[in-house]
């Protein structure tokens, strides 16, 4: 069960703003999904190592060679706002 407060907490972590209606829906839907997921709690997984990657690859290295990358103007071309050759964002201090 995930309650209203938890929904609002997780939404803050995820930088999402939910309407009052969405909070209620999310609480119900996530609770249903989590109820199902919680069944993995019944398994005995003592001593089982976690899998983070399925195909054995270790130290994927390539030669450290300088190569051309995206030109600045191309990298900035899709930006919503640009100033002085960089991405322009609102002030972090503003409310």
């Amino acid at each position, binding site marked *: 069960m*995930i309650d209203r407060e*938890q*929904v609002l*907490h*997780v*939404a803050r*972590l*995820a*930088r*999402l*703003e*939910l309407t009052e209606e*969405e909070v209620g829906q*999310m609480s119900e*839907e*996530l609770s*249903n*999904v*989590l109820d*199902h*997921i*919680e*069944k*993995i*709690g019944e*398994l005995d*997984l003592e001593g*089982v*190592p*976690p*899998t*983070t*990657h*399925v*195909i054995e*690859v270790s130290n*994927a290295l*390539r030669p450290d060679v300088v190569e051309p990358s*995206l030109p600045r103007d*191309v*990298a900035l*071309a*899709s*930006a*919503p*706002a640009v100033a002085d050759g960089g*991405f322009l*964002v*609102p*002030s*972090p*201090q*503003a*409310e």
Partner: protein
Amino acid sequence: MATTDLTALSAAQAVEAIGRGDLDPTELFEAYRQAATREDLNAYLWVAEDAPEPPAAGAPLAGVPLAVKDLFCTEGVPSQAGSKILEGYRPPYTASVVARLAAAGAPLLGKTNQDEFAMGSSNENSAFGPVLNPWDRTRVPGGSSGGSAAAVAAGCAPWALGTDTGGSIRQPAALCGIVGLKPTYGTVSRYGMVAFASSLDQAGPLTRDVTDAALLLRHMVGYDERDSTSVSFPPGEVVLPSAESLAGIRLGVPEELTGAGSEQGVGIEPGVLASFRATLELAEQLGATIETCHLPHAPHALSAYYVLAPAEASSNLARYDGVRYGLRVQDGGLLGMYTKTRSQGFGKEVKRRIMLGAYSLSSGYYDAYYGRAQRVRTKIAEDFRAAFERFDFVVTPTSPSVAFELGAKTGDPLSMYFNDYCTVPMSLAGIPAISIPNGLSEGLPTGFQLAGPAFSENRILDAAHALEQAIGFDARPGRTA
């Protein structure tokens, strides 16, 4: 040749016809361009305006055009991953696999609709509207690669690229009556694919037949230094399948995934089960031996998947913040901009999965959810390894049901997630699996799934080819009944 004759050729047949000088690639491209422009399934989000220059002489794919799922970055061409947050985004570079195929002579025909960020099993989560199933326009094509599957099934593309994270190639292929292959994780570069769950995402072909799947895959695989999880495809190239017999092949039928009334009453529809069993009999006639096998942890695969995939997604989708590209919604300061942009740019299911992922990764819950799910993943991979000591392939129905009606499952996320019941275990294990058309149930296509050990694509394609010949399915909607 008349336009309909041109688009009736399979991709491999078209490659041959061009090679013989019987078919002009520009004419072929134009025939598909017109079909893609005219289609009324909402399968395409963008279609090329002009036919490209014919490919270099001897290009192995000879200029046969390719439909590409929206989430592959294509330079200068809208690449929106089915999301409003990327509406109109035209990337400055092209995904490795798309570039590789273009170099082999498969030019970009169009970008296909999909569930937003590949999250969905019905294509109803696209910000650009649902795709309709060409077999019955009141039904879903499956998802998330629904546009690619519908386009191929309807003859509006010779073949298409999709991506599969938990079944997103195989399930729509099954529901649209075509072939869909999820390769071994790492064999196809993920560079330039909009990420959903990076440890699971894998690109693969959606095609009309098994030969086309092999031909397209042959030019997709290969090491790419721009993807740190990329591996070489051993031992060399993908071979076009020729087998017509299954002599000596041992098929394992996992009781946990196919048993009647399995876990939670996730029943497989009787019609789907009947066509699955009929194909097992065919396989036996072709020389295969069939036995029940066990994947004891498979019933927990869906739970582990719906922890791991949303957790990875919540991290991957943090990049959509209105700063560098895509939607920006201003609201006071920086934090307000992030929050408004994401709240207005993401759709319902994407928000749900981000929330689920952020929750299971949050302090106090990490070990209970994420940590445990990673251990379940280990057990599932071990289950498959054990099964493959006794069997060449594990086989199941691809999807528990035929294509369902639009809107039938949108109100109940959990019932939607159960579409992936038989496809998610292979994704967690990183192993290859193919879905081939397996006849009709209630007039709608069903799929037969074959999964094998990592890097067994050539053997899977051969076995799938033998079955395909024996099943004799006509992949054109409305032609078989």
